[in-house]
Protein backbone atom coordinates (compact mmCIF):
# COMPACT_ATOMS: atom_id res chain seq x y z
CA UNK A 1 0.00 0.00 0.00
CA UNK A 2 1.20 3.44 -0.82
CA UNK A 3 0.26 6.46 1.16
CA UNK A 4 1.71 9.11 -1.11
CA UNK A 5 -1.57 10.43 -2.56
CA UNK A 6 -3.79 10.36 0.52
CA UNK A 7 -6.53 12.95 0.63
CA UNK A 8 -5.64 16.40 1.87
CA UNK A 9 -1.98 15.61 1.63
CA UNK A 10 -2.06 12.94 4.29
CA UNK A 11 -3.63 15.07 7.02
CA UNK A 12 -6.09 12.99 8.97
CA UNK A 13 -8.73 15.56 9.82
CA UNK A 14 -11.78 14.50 11.79
CA UNK A 15 -13.77 14.35 8.50
CA UNK A 16 -11.62 11.59 7.14
CA UNK A 17 -11.77 9.34 10.19
CA UNK A 18 -14.56 7.30 8.57
CA UNK A 19 -11.84 5.79 6.41
CA UNK A 20 -10.97 3.60 9.34
CA UNK A 21 -14.28 1.77 8.88
CA UNK A 22 -14.17 1.77 5.13
CA UNK A 23 -10.74 0.23 4.98
CA UNK A 24 -11.15 -2.45 7.67
CA UNK A 25 -13.96 -4.90 7.02
CA UNK A 26 -13.99 -6.16 10.60
CA UNK A 27 -14.39 -2.61 11.96
CA UNK A 28 -17.13 -1.99 9.41
CA UNK A 29 -18.91 -5.18 10.48
CA UNK A 30 -18.69 -4.28 14.15
CA UNK A 31 -19.84 -0.74 13.36
CA UNK A 32 -22.89 -2.04 11.46
CA UNK A 33 -23.77 -4.41 14.30
CA UNK A 34 -23.55 -1.62 16.85
CA UNK A 35 -25.77 0.70 14.81
CA UNK A 36 -28.40 -1.95 14.10
CA UNK A 37 -28.42 -2.96 17.76
CA UNK A 38 -29.09 0.62 18.82
CA UNK A 39 -31.87 0.96 16.23
CA UNK A 40 -33.33 -2.36 17.25
CA UNK A 41 -33.22 -1.59 20.96
CA UNK A 42 -34.84 1.80 20.53
CA UNK A 43 -37.55 0.68 18.13
CA UNK A 44 -38.33 -2.89 19.12
CA UNK A 45 -37.76 -3.21 22.83
CA UNK A 46 -40.50 -0.73 23.85
CA UNK A 47 -42.97 -2.87 21.90
CA UNK A 48 -42.39 -5.71 24.34
CA UNK A 49 -44.29 -3.61 26.86
CA UNK A 50 -47.50 -4.69 25.15
CA UNK A 51 -49.67 -2.96 27.69
CA UNK A 52 -48.63 0.33 26.21
CA UNK A 53 -48.97 -0.63 22.55
CA UNK A 54 -52.27 -2.52 22.42
CA UNK A 55 -55.16 -0.68 23.94
CA UNK A 56 -57.81 -2.66 25.79
CA UNK A 57 -60.90 -2.99 23.64
CA UNK A 58 -64.19 -4.63 24.56
CA UNK A 59 -65.40 -7.53 22.49
CA UNK A 60 -62.25 -8.92 20.93
CA UNK A 61 -62.28 -12.67 21.33
CA UNK A 62 -60.13 -15.49 19.97
CA UNK A 63 -61.39 -17.10 16.77
CA UNK A 64 -63.68 -20.09 17.14
CA UNK A 65 -62.25 -23.42 15.94
CA UNK A 66 -64.27 -23.21 12.71
CA UNK A 67 -63.15 -19.64 12.06
CA UNK A 68 -59.59 -20.64 12.87
CA UNK A 69 -59.82 -23.48 10.35
CA UNK A 70 -61.10 -20.90 7.86
CA UNK A 71 -58.22 -18.63 8.70
CA UNK A 72 -55.78 -21.46 8.01
CA UNK A 73 -57.37 -21.82 4.56
CA UNK A 74 -57.13 -18.05 4.08
CA UNK A 75 -53.41 -18.25 4.79
CA UNK A 76 -52.94 -21.43 2.76
CA UNK A 77 -54.55 -19.93 -0.34
CA UNK A 78 -52.50 -16.76 0.03
CA UNK A 79 -55.49 -14.43 0.27
CA UNK A 80 -53.27 -11.93 2.07
CA UNK A 81 -51.29 -11.46 -1.13
CA UNK A 82 -54.14 -9.48 -2.64
CA UNK A 83 -56.34 -8.50 0.30
CA UNK A 84 -55.21 -6.37 3.21
CA UNK A 85 -56.88 -6.45 6.61
CA UNK A 86 -55.80 -3.03 7.74
CA UNK A 87 -57.95 0.06 7.38
CA UNK A 88 -55.61 2.99 7.88
CA UNK A 89 -56.77 6.14 9.65
CA UNK A 90 -57.18 8.02 6.39
CA UNK A 91 -60.37 9.70 5.26
CA UNK A 92 -60.89 7.81 2.03
CA UNK A 93 -60.28 4.45 3.66
CA UNK A 94 -62.61 5.13 6.58
CA UNK A 95 -65.23 6.35 4.11
CA UNK A 96 -65.05 3.21 2.06
CA UNK A 97 -64.28 0.44 4.53
CA UNK A 98 -65.49 1.71 7.90
CA UNK A 99 -63.74 2.46 11.18
CA UNK A 100 -59.96 2.23 10.99
CA UNK A 101 -58.48 -1.01 12.29
CA UNK A 102 -57.41 -1.20 15.91
CA UNK A 103 -54.29 -3.04 17.05
CA UNK A 104 -56.47 -5.05 19.41
CA UNK A 105 -58.48 -6.43 16.52
CA UNK A 106 -55.54 -8.46 15.29
CA UNK A 107 -53.88 -9.17 18.62
CA UNK A 108 -54.85 -12.86 18.49
CA UNK A 109 -53.67 -13.28 14.90
CA UNK A 110 -50.44 -15.23 14.62
CA UNK A 111 -49.25 -14.19 12.14
CA UNK A 112 -51.35 -11.09 11.51
CA UNK A 113 -53.01 -10.78 8.10
CA UNK A 114 -52.60 -7.05 7.57
CA UNK A 115 -51.17 -7.71 4.13
CA UNK A 116 -49.15 -5.20 2.20
CA UNK A 117 -50.85 -4.83 -1.14
CA UNK A 118 -54.41 -4.33 -2.30
CA UNK A 119 -55.01 -6.03 -5.61
CA UNK A 120 -58.46 -6.67 -4.22
CA UNK A 121 -60.17 -4.49 -1.63
CA UNK A 122 -59.35 -4.37 2.06
CA UNK A 123 -61.42 -6.95 3.91
CA UNK A 124 -60.78 -5.96 7.51
CA UNK A 125 -64.52 -5.27 7.92
CA UNK A 126 -66.02 -7.56 5.32
CA UNK A 127 -67.85 -9.52 8.02
CA UNK A 128 -71.60 -9.09 7.63
CA UNK A 129 -71.27 -7.03 4.49
CA UNK A 130 -72.47 -9.83 2.21
CA UNK A 131 -74.54 -12.95 2.68
CA UNK A 132 -73.05 -16.42 3.10
CA UNK A 133 -74.54 -17.31 -0.28
CA UNK A 134 -72.79 -14.40 -1.91
CA UNK A 135 -69.46 -15.57 -0.51
CA UNK A 136 -70.20 -19.05 -1.80
CA UNK A 137 -70.98 -17.76 -5.30
CA UNK A 138 -68.04 -15.39 -5.18
CA UNK A 139 -65.52 -18.01 -4.05
CA UNK A 140 -66.74 -20.45 -6.69
CA UNK A 141 -66.52 -17.91 -9.49
CA UNK A 142 -66.00 -14.24 -8.62
CA UNK A 143 -67.14 -13.18 -12.10
CA UNK A 144 -70.61 -14.60 -11.46
CA UNK A 145 -71.34 -11.68 -9.14
CA UNK A 146 -68.62 -9.12 -9.88
CA UNK A 147 -68.08 -9.18 -13.67
CA UNK A 148 -64.98 -6.98 -13.54
CA UNK A 149 -63.28 -9.01 -10.83
CA UNK A 150 -59.79 -10.38 -11.49
CA UNK A 151 -59.85 -12.66 -8.45
CA UNK A 152 -59.27 -16.32 -9.26
CA UNK A 153 -62.07 -18.76 -8.49
CA UNK A 154 -61.68 -21.25 -5.66
CA UNK A 155 -64.29 -23.82 -6.67
CA UNK A 156 -62.61 -26.73 -4.91
CA UNK A 157 -63.17 -25.17 -1.49
CA UNK A 158 -66.86 -26.04 -1.54
CA UNK A 159 -66.22 -29.62 -2.62
CA UNK A 160 -63.39 -30.35 -0.20
CA UNK A 161 -64.36 -31.69 3.20
CA UNK A 162 -62.93 -29.61 6.00
CA UNK A 163 -60.12 -31.36 7.84
CA UNK A 164 -60.32 -30.37 11.47
CA UNK A 165 -58.29 -33.22 12.90
CA UNK A 166 -55.50 -30.83 13.90
CA UNK A 167 -57.53 -27.82 14.92
CA UNK A 168 -57.09 -28.48 18.66
CA UNK A 169 -53.33 -28.63 18.13
CA UNK A 170 -53.47 -25.31 16.28
CA UNK A 171 -55.29 -23.87 19.27
CA UNK A 172 -52.75 -25.32 21.67
CA UNK A 173 -49.90 -23.67 19.77
CA UNK A 174 -51.74 -20.37 19.66
CA UNK A 175 -52.32 -20.65 23.40
CA UNK A 176 -48.56 -20.90 23.86
CA UNK A 177 -48.26 -17.73 21.79
CA UNK A 178 -50.62 -15.92 24.13
CA UNK A 179 -54.08 -16.43 22.65
CA UNK A 180 -56.40 -17.07 25.61
CA UNK A 181 -57.69 -20.47 24.54
CA UNK A 182 -58.66 -22.36 27.66
CA UNK A 183 -58.37 -26.08 28.21
CA UNK A 184 -62.14 -26.30 27.89
CA UNK A 185 -62.08 -24.53 24.50
CA UNK A 186 -59.38 -26.81 23.18
CA UNK A 187 -61.16 -29.95 24.37
CA UNK A 188 -64.42 -28.81 22.81
CA UNK A 189 -62.78 -27.82 19.52
CA UNK A 190 -64.10 -30.65 17.36
CA UNK A 191 -67.65 -30.36 18.64
CA UNK A 192 -67.57 -26.54 18.43
CA UNK A 193 -66.72 -26.82 14.73
CA UNK A 194 -69.87 -28.86 14.19
CA UNK A 195 -71.97 -26.64 16.44
CA UNK A 196 -71.07 -23.42 14.67
CA UNK A 197 -71.74 -24.96 11.28
CA UNK A 198 -75.18 -26.27 12.14
CA UNK A 199 -78.54 -24.88 13.17
CA UNK A 200 -79.19 -24.06 16.81
CA UNK A 201 -79.27 -27.00 19.18
CA UNK A 202 -78.40 -27.86 22.77
CA UNK A 203 -74.70 -27.37 22.05
CA UNK A 204 -75.14 -23.80 20.86
CA UNK A 205 -75.49 -22.15 24.27
CA UNK A 206 -72.22 -23.46 25.74
CA UNK A 207 -70.53 -22.65 22.44
CA UNK A 208 -71.72 -19.04 22.60
CA UNK A 209 -70.55 -18.87 26.19
CA UNK A 210 -67.08 -19.78 25.04
CA UNK A 211 -67.17 -17.44 22.04
CA UNK A 212 -69.56 -14.55 22.74
CA UNK A 213 -71.46 -13.19 19.74
CA UNK A 214 -70.04 -15.80 17.37
CA UNK A 215 -72.47 -16.53 14.55
CA UNK A 216 -73.68 -20.08 14.53
CA UNK A 217 -75.81 -21.19 11.60
CA UNK A 218 -76.57 -23.98 9.19
CA UNK A 219 -73.71 -23.81 6.76
CA UNK A 220 -74.92 -26.60 4.54
CA UNK A 221 -71.71 -28.23 3.53
CA UNK A 222 -71.69 -31.31 1.37
CA UNK A 223 -73.88 -34.15 2.63
CA UNK A 224 -73.84 -32.88 6.15
CA UNK A 225 -70.08 -32.44 6.28
CA UNK A 226 -68.60 -29.00 6.51
CA UNK A 227 -66.44 -27.94 3.61
CA UNK A 228 -63.43 -25.69 3.42
CA UNK A 229 -65.65 -23.00 1.91
CA UNK A 230 -67.88 -23.15 5.01
CA UNK A 231 -64.92 -22.57 7.29
CA UNK A 232 -63.54 -19.75 5.17
CA UNK A 233 -66.97 -18.08 5.07
CA UNK A 234 -67.29 -18.39 8.85
CA UNK A 235 -63.90 -16.70 9.14
CA UNK A 236 -64.74 -13.93 6.66
CA UNK A 237 -68.12 -13.24 8.23
CA UNK A 238 -66.58 -12.36 11.61
CA UNK A 239 -63.87 -10.07 10.22
CA UNK A 240 -64.08 -6.65 11.81
CA UNK A 241 -67.32 -7.39 13.65
CA UNK A 242 -66.00 -8.10 17.12
CA UNK A 243 -65.69 -4.52 18.32
CA UNK A 244 -68.94 -2.61 18.63
CA UNK A 245 -68.04 0.85 17.35
CA UNK A 246 -71.24 2.29 18.73
CA UNK A 247 -69.70 1.73 22.15
CA UNK A 248 -66.06 2.26 21.23
CA UNK A 249 -64.76 5.65 22.29
CA UNK A 250 -62.21 6.99 19.81
CA UNK A 251 -61.13 9.87 22.00
CA UNK A 252 -60.60 7.83 25.14
CA UNK A 253 -57.99 5.85 23.33
CA UNK A 254 -56.00 8.73 21.95
CA UNK A 255 -52.80 8.59 23.92
Amino acid at each position, binding site marked *: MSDTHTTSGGKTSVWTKHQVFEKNSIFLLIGILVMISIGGLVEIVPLF*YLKSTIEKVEGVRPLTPLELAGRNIYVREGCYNCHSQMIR*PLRDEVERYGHYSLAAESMYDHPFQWGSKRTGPDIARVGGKYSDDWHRDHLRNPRSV*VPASIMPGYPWLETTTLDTSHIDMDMRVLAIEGVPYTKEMIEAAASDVKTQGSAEDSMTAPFLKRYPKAISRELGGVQGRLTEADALIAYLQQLGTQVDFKLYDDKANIR
Partner: protein
Amino acid sequence: MEQKTSAPADTSAPVQTGVGTTGHIWDGIEELNNPLPRWWLWTFYACIIWAVGYWFFYPAIPLVSSYTKGLLGWQSRTQIELDMAELKAMRSGMTTKIEATELADIEKSPELLSFARAQGSAAFAVNCAPCHGAGAQGFKGYPNLNDDDWIWGGKAEDILTTIKHGVRWEQDSDSRSGVMPSFGRDGILNRKEIGTVADYVLSLSGLPVDKGSDLAAGKALYAANCAACHGDTGKGNQELGAPNLSDKVWLYGSDKAAVMERITIGGGGVMPAWSNRLDAATMKSLAVYVHTLGGGK
Protein backbone atom coordinates in the same frame (compact mmCIF):
# COMPACT_ATOMS: atom_id res chain seq x y z
CA MET B 1 0.90 12.87 -32.48
CA GLU B 2 4.62 13.14 -32.08
CA GLN B 3 6.49 11.36 -29.37
CA LYS B 4 9.00 13.39 -27.33
CA THR B 5 12.08 11.45 -26.35
CA SER B 6 12.77 13.48 -23.23
CA ALA B 7 11.87 12.18 -19.73
CA PRO B 8 8.53 10.32 -19.89
CA ALA B 9 5.64 12.42 -18.52
CA ASP B 10 3.77 11.04 -15.50
CA THR B 11 0.53 9.90 -17.11
CA SER B 12 -0.97 8.50 -13.91
CA ALA B 13 -4.48 9.71 -13.25
CA PRO B 14 -3.78 11.37 -9.88
CA VAL B 15 -1.24 13.61 -11.43
CA GLN B 16 -3.31 14.28 -14.58
CA THR B 17 -6.50 15.09 -12.70
CA GLY B 18 -5.10 16.60 -9.57
CA VAL B 19 -7.40 14.39 -7.50
CA GLY B 20 -5.95 12.39 -4.67
CA THR B 21 -6.30 8.64 -4.36
CA THR B 22 -7.72 6.44 -1.70
CA GLY B 23 -4.32 4.94 -1.23
CA HIS B 24 -5.21 1.59 -2.70
CA ILE B 25 -2.95 0.25 -5.38
CA TRP B 26 -3.59 -3.07 -7.10
CA ASP B 27 -1.08 -4.08 -9.74
CA GLY B 28 -0.25 -0.45 -10.23
CA ILE B 29 -3.88 0.60 -10.60
CA GLU B 30 -4.80 3.40 -8.23
CA GLU B 31 -8.25 4.38 -7.02
CA LEU B 32 -9.17 8.06 -7.35
CA ASN B 33 -10.75 9.61 -4.32
CA ASN B 34 -13.23 11.89 -6.07
CA PRO B 35 -15.43 13.82 -3.69
CA LEU B 36 -19.15 13.06 -3.56
CA PRO B 37 -21.23 15.25 -5.88
CA ARG B 38 -22.02 18.42 -4.02
CA TRP B 39 -25.79 18.27 -4.72
CA TRP B 40 -25.88 14.78 -3.25
CA LEU B 41 -23.92 15.79 -0.19
CA TRP B 42 -26.14 18.77 0.53
CA THR B 43 -29.28 16.69 0.09
CA PHE B 44 -27.82 14.21 2.55
CA TYR B 45 -27.12 16.95 5.11
CA ALA B 46 -30.57 18.45 4.56
CA CYS B 47 -32.16 15.06 5.27
CA ILE B 48 -30.27 14.83 8.55
CA ILE B 49 -31.45 18.30 9.55
CA TRP B 50 -35.01 17.39 8.49
CA ALA B 51 -34.90 14.22 10.60
CA VAL B 52 -33.79 16.16 13.67
CA GLY B 53 -36.60 18.67 13.11
CA TYR B 54 -39.04 15.78 12.71
CA TRP B 55 -37.98 14.36 16.08
CA PHE B 56 -38.86 17.63 17.74
CA PHE B 57 -42.16 18.32 16.00
CA TYR B 58 -43.71 14.88 15.50
CA PRO B 59 -44.10 11.74 17.60
CA ALA B 60 -40.80 9.95 17.09
CA ILE B 61 -38.92 8.06 19.74
CA PRO B 62 -40.46 5.19 21.69
CA LEU B 63 -39.78 5.25 25.41
CA VAL B 64 -40.36 2.61 28.03
CA SER B 65 -44.05 3.20 28.61
CA SER B 66 -44.78 6.08 26.28
CA TYR B 67 -43.11 7.95 23.44
CA THR B 68 -41.96 11.45 22.57
CA LYS B 69 -45.11 13.32 21.53
CA GLY B 70 -43.54 16.12 19.52
CA LEU B 71 -44.12 19.85 19.77
CA LEU B 72 -47.06 19.92 17.33
CA GLY B 73 -48.99 17.28 19.28
CA TRP B 74 -49.93 15.58 16.01
CA GLN B 75 -51.69 12.22 16.24
CA SER B 76 -53.03 10.14 13.39
CA ARG B 77 -56.16 9.47 15.44
CA THR B 78 -56.92 13.11 16.14
CA GLN B 79 -56.12 13.88 12.52
CA ILE B 80 -58.68 11.38 11.20
CA GLU B 81 -61.24 12.75 13.67
CA LEU B 82 -60.66 16.20 12.24
CA ASP B 83 -60.77 14.96 8.66
CA MET B 84 -64.03 13.11 9.20
CA ALA B 85 -65.55 16.05 11.06
CA GLU B 86 -64.59 18.32 8.18
CA LEU B 87 -66.19 15.92 5.72
CA LYS B 88 -69.33 15.71 7.82
CA ALA B 89 -69.53 19.48 8.05
CA MET B 90 -69.04 19.79 4.32
CA ARG B 91 -71.98 17.49 3.67
CA SER B 92 -74.15 18.53 6.59
CA GLY B 93 -75.90 21.28 4.64
CA MET B 94 -77.56 18.65 2.51
CA THR B 95 -77.50 15.57 4.73
CA THR B 96 -79.42 17.26 7.56
CA LYS B 97 -82.09 18.20 5.01
CA ILE B 98 -82.17 14.64 3.70
CA GLU B 99 -82.52 13.32 7.23
CA ALA B 100 -85.36 15.71 8.02
CA THR B 101 -87.31 15.25 4.80
CA GLU B 102 -89.80 12.52 3.94
CA LEU B 103 -88.67 10.25 1.12
CA ALA B 104 -91.52 11.36 -1.13
CA ASP B 105 -90.65 15.02 -0.56
CA ILE B 106 -86.98 14.39 -1.32
CA GLU B 107 -88.02 13.12 -4.72
CA LYS B 108 -90.16 16.21 -5.30
CA SER B 109 -87.32 18.63 -4.59
CA PRO B 110 -84.90 18.76 -7.54
CA GLU B 111 -82.07 19.93 -5.27
CA LEU B 112 -82.52 17.16 -2.70
CA LEU B 113 -83.20 14.55 -5.37
CA SER B 114 -80.00 15.28 -7.24
CA PHE B 115 -77.97 15.16 -4.01
CA ALA B 116 -79.66 11.96 -2.85
CA ARG B 117 -79.12 10.31 -6.21
CA ALA B 118 -75.46 11.31 -6.23
CA GLN B 119 -74.88 10.11 -2.68
CA GLY B 120 -76.98 7.03 -3.29
CA SER B 121 -75.10 6.17 -6.44
CA ALA B 122 -71.72 6.39 -4.65
CA ALA B 123 -72.94 4.32 -1.72
CA PHE B 124 -74.50 1.82 -4.10
CA ALA B 125 -71.21 1.28 -5.91
CA VAL B 126 -69.37 0.54 -2.66
CA ASN B 127 -71.99 -1.46 -0.80
CA CYS B 128 -74.68 -2.82 -3.09
CA ALA B 129 -73.04 -3.44 -6.47
CA PRO B 130 -71.22 -6.63 -5.42
CA CYS B 131 -74.58 -8.39 -5.19
CA HIS B 132 -77.00 -6.33 -7.27
CA GLY B 133 -74.50 -5.40 -9.98
CA ALA B 134 -72.96 -2.08 -10.91
CA GLY B 135 -76.07 -1.13 -12.88
CA ALA B 136 -78.44 -2.66 -10.31
CA GLN B 137 -79.19 -5.28 -12.94
CA GLY B 138 -78.88 -8.12 -10.44
CA PHE B 139 -77.56 -11.64 -10.93
CA LYS B 140 -79.08 -15.07 -10.49
CA GLY B 141 -80.36 -15.04 -6.93
CA TYR B 142 -79.80 -11.29 -6.49
CA PRO B 143 -82.77 -9.20 -7.61
CA ASN B 144 -82.70 -6.71 -10.44
CA LEU B 145 -83.59 -3.32 -8.98
CA ASN B 146 -84.37 -1.59 -12.29
CA ASP B 147 -87.59 -3.46 -13.05
CA ASP B 148 -90.94 -3.05 -11.34
CA ASP B 149 -91.00 -6.54 -9.90
CA TRP B 150 -90.47 -6.15 -6.16
CA ILE B 151 -90.21 -8.99 -3.69
CA TRP B 152 -90.52 -6.92 -0.50
CA GLY B 153 -92.29 -3.86 -1.90
CA GLY B 154 -91.21 -1.17 -4.31
CA LYS B 155 -92.31 1.96 -2.50
CA ALA B 156 -89.44 4.14 -1.31
CA GLU B 157 -90.35 3.38 2.32
CA ASP B 158 -90.34 -0.35 1.63
CA ILE B 159 -86.94 -0.10 0.02
CA LEU B 160 -85.60 1.90 2.96
CA THR B 161 -86.86 -0.73 5.41
CA THR B 162 -85.20 -3.46 3.39
CA ILE B 163 -81.92 -1.53 3.34
CA LYS B 164 -82.04 -0.81 7.06
CA HIS B 165 -82.91 -4.27 8.30
CA GLY B 166 -81.96 -6.57 5.47
CA VAL B 167 -83.66 -9.74 4.35
CA ARG B 168 -83.52 -12.92 6.45
CA TRP B 169 -80.58 -11.32 8.28
CA GLU B 170 -80.53 -13.12 11.58
CA GLN B 171 -78.51 -10.54 13.48
CA ASP B 172 -81.31 -7.98 12.96
CA SER B 173 -84.54 -8.84 14.72
CA ASP B 174 -86.51 -6.49 12.44
CA SER B 175 -85.15 -8.09 9.30
CA ARG B 176 -87.54 -9.09 6.53
CA SER B 177 -88.35 -12.70 7.12
CA GLY B 178 -90.32 -15.31 5.31
CA VAL B 179 -88.76 -18.60 4.42
CA MET B 180 -90.04 -20.95 1.78
CA PRO B 181 -90.12 -24.54 3.06
CA SER B 182 -87.71 -27.04 1.57
CA PHE B 183 -90.45 -29.03 -0.12
CA GLY B 184 -88.03 -31.55 -1.55
CA ARG B 185 -85.38 -31.82 1.14
CA ASP B 186 -87.89 -32.07 3.93
CA GLY B 187 -89.93 -34.63 2.05
CA ILE B 188 -93.13 -32.58 1.80
CA LEU B 189 -93.36 -33.30 -1.92
CA ASN B 190 -91.70 -36.05 -3.85
CA ARG B 191 -89.72 -35.48 -7.01
CA LYS B 192 -92.64 -36.28 -9.33
CA GLU B 193 -94.93 -33.89 -7.47
CA ILE B 194 -92.31 -31.16 -7.62
CA GLY B 195 -92.09 -31.61 -11.39
CA THR B 196 -95.85 -31.45 -11.69
CA VAL B 197 -96.19 -28.29 -9.62
CA ALA B 198 -93.22 -26.73 -11.44
CA ASP B 199 -95.06 -27.21 -14.73
CA TYR B 200 -98.08 -25.50 -13.28
CA VAL B 201 -95.95 -22.60 -11.97
CA LEU B 202 -94.43 -22.13 -15.42
CA SER B 203 -97.89 -22.13 -16.96
CA LEU B 204 -98.94 -19.28 -14.64
CA SER B 205 -96.85 -16.84 -16.64
CA GLY B 206 -97.65 -18.49 -19.96
CA LEU B 207 -94.33 -20.25 -20.34
CA PRO B 208 -94.38 -23.45 -22.40
CA VAL B 209 -94.63 -26.66 -20.38
CA ASP B 210 -93.68 -30.23 -21.20
CA LYS B 211 -96.15 -32.15 -23.30
CA GLY B 212 -98.31 -34.46 -21.26
CA SER B 213 -97.80 -32.56 -18.04
CA ASP B 214 -100.74 -32.78 -15.70
CA LEU B 215 -101.63 -29.15 -15.08
CA ALA B 216 -104.78 -30.06 -13.14
CA ALA B 217 -102.76 -32.11 -10.69
CA GLY B 218 -100.21 -29.33 -10.57
CA LYS B 219 -102.91 -26.83 -9.76
CA ALA B 220 -104.17 -28.97 -6.90
CA LEU B 221 -100.66 -29.33 -5.50
CA TYR B 222 -100.13 -25.60 -5.93
CA ALA B 223 -103.33 -24.76 -4.07
CA ALA B 224 -102.37 -27.05 -1.21
CA ASN B 225 -98.72 -26.06 -0.86
CA CYS B 226 -97.95 -22.75 -2.53
CA ALA B 227 -101.04 -20.59 -2.70
CA ALA B 228 -100.91 -19.60 0.96
CA CYS B 229 -97.89 -17.41 0.25
CA HIS B 230 -97.74 -16.96 -3.52
CA GLY B 231 -101.49 -16.39 -3.87
CA ASP B 232 -104.15 -18.36 -5.73
CA THR B 233 -103.14 -16.92 -9.07
CA GLY B 234 -99.44 -16.65 -8.29
CA LYS B 235 -99.42 -12.90 -7.81
CA GLY B 236 -97.15 -13.27 -4.80
CA ASN B 237 -97.25 -11.52 -1.45
CA GLN B 238 -94.82 -8.77 -0.62
CA GLU B 239 -95.62 -8.97 3.10
CA LEU B 240 -94.08 -12.43 3.12
CA GLY B 241 -91.51 -11.82 0.43
CA ALA B 242 -93.23 -14.39 -1.77
CA PRO B 243 -92.36 -13.44 -5.35
CA ASN B 244 -94.91 -12.97 -8.07
CA LEU B 245 -94.92 -16.17 -10.15
CA SER B 246 -97.26 -14.92 -12.83
CA ASP B 247 -94.91 -12.35 -14.38
CA LYS B 248 -91.95 -13.14 -16.53
CA VAL B 249 -89.32 -12.00 -14.06
CA TRP B 250 -87.41 -14.92 -12.58
CA LEU B 251 -84.82 -14.60 -9.84
CA TYR B 252 -83.33 -18.07 -10.24
CA GLY B 253 -84.17 -18.78 -13.88
CA SER B 254 -87.30 -19.70 -15.79
CA ASP B 255 -86.47 -23.21 -16.95
CA LYS B 256 -88.16 -26.14 -15.29
CA ALA B 257 -84.95 -27.37 -13.65
CA ALA B 258 -84.42 -23.99 -11.95
CA VAL B 259 -88.00 -23.88 -10.67
CA MET B 260 -87.77 -27.44 -9.41
CA GLU B 261 -84.51 -26.64 -7.65
CA ARG B 262 -86.12 -23.74 -5.79
CA ILE B 263 -89.08 -25.87 -4.76
CA THR B 264 -86.69 -28.57 -3.56
CA ILE B 265 -84.40 -26.26 -1.58
CA GLY B 266 -86.81 -23.52 -0.53
CA GLY B 267 -85.35 -20.77 1.61
CA GLY B 268 -84.51 -17.53 -0.07
CA GLY B 269 -81.83 -14.95 -0.58
CA VAL B 270 -80.18 -13.14 2.28
CA MET B 271 -79.42 -9.44 2.37
CA PRO B 272 -77.41 -7.90 5.23
CA ALA B 273 -78.88 -5.17 7.40
CA TRP B 274 -77.11 -1.89 6.72
CA SER B 275 -78.17 0.21 9.70
CA ASN B 276 -74.96 -0.65 11.57
CA ARG B 277 -72.75 0.23 8.66
CA LEU B 278 -74.36 3.26 6.99
CA ASP B 279 -75.70 6.48 8.48
CA ALA B 280 -79.33 7.53 8.22
CA ALA B 281 -78.83 10.03 5.41
CA THR B 282 -76.88 7.57 3.28
CA MET B 283 -79.57 4.91 3.67
CA LYS B 284 -82.29 7.39 2.71
CA SER B 285 -80.27 8.48 -0.29
CA LEU B 286 -79.84 4.85 -1.28
CA ALA B 287 -83.57 4.26 -1.00
CA VAL B 288 -84.24 7.27 -3.21
CA TYR B 289 -81.57 6.17 -5.68
CA VAL B 290 -82.98 2.65 -5.98
CA HIS B 291 -86.55 3.91 -6.06
CA THR B 292 -85.81 6.27 -8.93
CA LEU B 293 -83.84 3.74 -10.99
CA GLY B 294 -86.94 3.11 -13.00
CA GLY B 295 -89.06 0.50 -11.30
CA GLY B 296 -90.08 2.25 -8.11
CA LYS B 297 -93.74 2.10 -7.18
